[in-house]
């Protein structure tokens, strides 16, 4: 197991994640969001497909 370094502030926000995003350009941030949206939609579709397949069998 790796060493768990706590980077969350009092409100539970991951400060390291914020710092990582701030290093990107605005365009890179938008691209990262686009990729996240695509991944979410793909997972949702996969879930729906599996659920429907389960209902059919």
């Amino acid at each position: 197991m790796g060493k768990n370094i706590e980077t969350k502030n009092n409100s539970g926000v991951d400060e390291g994640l914020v710092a990582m995003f701030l290093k990107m350009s605005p365009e890179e941030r938008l691209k990262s969001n686009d990729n996240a949206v695509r991944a979410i939609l793909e997972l949702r579709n996969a879930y729906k497909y599996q659920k429907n397949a389960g209902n059919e069998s």
Partner: protein
Amino acid sequence: MPTNIKKTQETNLSAIIEGLINAEVEFILVGGLAAVTQGAPVTTMDVAIVYNRSPENISKLFAFLKSIDATYRRPDKKIIAPKEEDFSGMGHALFTTRIGPLDVLAFIEERKTYEDLVKHTIKIEFRGQTIQVLDIKMLIELKRKSKDPKDKQRLPVLEETLRQLEKKEG
């Protein structure tokens, strides 16, 4: 892994922004994507804009919406396309388009319109062009007053982003 999943649309939120720029629509990027562009590590599923309600701008916006097959987002299956006159009032129009969801807003919290918000924007270079984005301070101010649970949930992330931005700028 399933391979025969039908994709109804290819979501590309950046393409919506680029399309608005190319169509010369005057708008301010607000909501989640405004936060994303300024460094907040949040994910948002739609583009939200506040538009200038001048007749000329409404015509440009309407033509752009037609070009991306915009129809009103509805809980039922009715397909309703927008009409140009829908945008002259003080309303919210939430669309599904072939490149992703787009919220076209005449105003946001406290009925702030394009004219009210334009002085609270920053200019961001995007694909060689400039877009106006609602600045993170104003985003935070509005979210603090919001009753939407999603806004409340995001607020600490926005506040931490602003804290680090201010620290960086000294």
